[in-house]
């Protein structure tokens, strides 16, 4: 099921089995629009997120994923997030990659050894 969200369908969201796939751009115009539905999906048991087709990802995307991670953390579950290179790069630069409530898949940034939780 395709769910276009935001202006001109900036980001498409659909279910592929147990996985939730996001495709397109995540920015400040649609991150808050996407959040409630994605949190509902986590409450319904989704733990696998496929962000390998995300083209644009910045601070608003980080904010969105941190909200999802907080939800998972509250529920005691661990998200698995498959990252496009840009997504992984931005998460690593922001120092949020290491956390017990998610596992990021996709190669980490060279030379940017992750920061341990709570110390930065």
């Amino acid at each position, binding site marked *: 099921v395709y769910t276009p969200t935001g202006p001109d369908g900036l980001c498409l969201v659909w279910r592929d089995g147990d996985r939730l796939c996001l495709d397109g751009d995540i920015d400040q115009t649609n991150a808050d629009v996407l959040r409630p539905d994605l949190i509902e999906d986590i409450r319904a048991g989704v733990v696998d997120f496929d962000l390998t087709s995300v083209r644009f990802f910045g601070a608003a995307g980080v904010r969105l994923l941190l909200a999802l991670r907080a939800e998972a953390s509250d529920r005691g579950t661990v998200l698995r997030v498959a990252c496009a290179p840009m997504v992984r790069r931005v998460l690593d630069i*922001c120092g949020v990659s290491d956390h017990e409530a998610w596992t990021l898949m996709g190669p980490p940034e060279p030379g940017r050894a992750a920061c341990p939780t709570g110390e930065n």
Partner: protein
Amino acid sequence: MRRAPFHHSALIVDSDETLRDRLAPLIERGMVAHEPMLMVVTARTEGIIRGILGLTATRVVWGDSSGFYRSLGTAYEMFRRYLVRQHRNGQRVHVVAEPSFDRTDLPVAVSRVSEYLAYEAVCNQVYAPYGCPVTCLWDSRSQSPSVIDQVRGLHPYEIGPYGRTRQPRFVSSEAYLRERANRGLGAVPEANDLDIFPTEDMAPVRAAVNAWAFSAGFDEAMAGDVVVAVSEIIANAFVHGSAPVRLRCWRDGGTLVAQVDDAGGAPIPSEAGYIPPDNISPGGRGLWLARQLADVVLTSSQNGVTSVRLHFPYAVTVANHD
């Protein structure tokens, strides 16, 4: 419990004898005290120190100074992450760093050294929790007297002929950053590659910036850095400033330059983008991302216009992906 002071010291090098008389004894004292040391210095300095110390030099860890050819924000953050790891492991490592700034293709009018001094200022606060002394070598033979003067003011300690002494002319990082926040950016060239008034729907702007970076020979990942940094600054202009927002992009030699102006004229907080974001809070990451991805980032708010200018030297943007 009161935290031990952060020993951030300047060692001003005016001759090779200074290395012999000040740096070599500093290392020897550290070795006697069983204090681990990481040296991230130029090949020339390493050669001189190895010649003086002989076998003692093998007890020091010699780091790779190529990090200084990544973006300045990245170089500074890589050091911080090293300090975080030492702290987590209960290690106290004395870091000796000699920043090197040649070998980039920035326009001559843009000073990497000047921008790096902002990081020297802010690390007094940002590196302090990790309990590791940091000593910075600055060579007065290759830097102007004004830069050396500022370096002294930004380090609470100096390594002199008799070891470490407190710096009486120390300036707080807040005061330093506030003073430098309004230096002005210099003129924008009359002919630009891009001159756009973005709306909040930024997909077309991102496509244009991406194509522009490609046309200058940036590969997909490097162009992505430019797109993210520029988008974050435009998003900030809409959130914290006011329309109209204007984006101009041009080339200066091997450097891509992008400037975002908004009509709000609000000053950008002088520490914005210099303090690492935490692992939890929702906001405050836009300018951090821009300062990590671009090399020199200049800001100003004058005459009712707030401006941010991002520089992406080709070589630095390549090195940022090594």
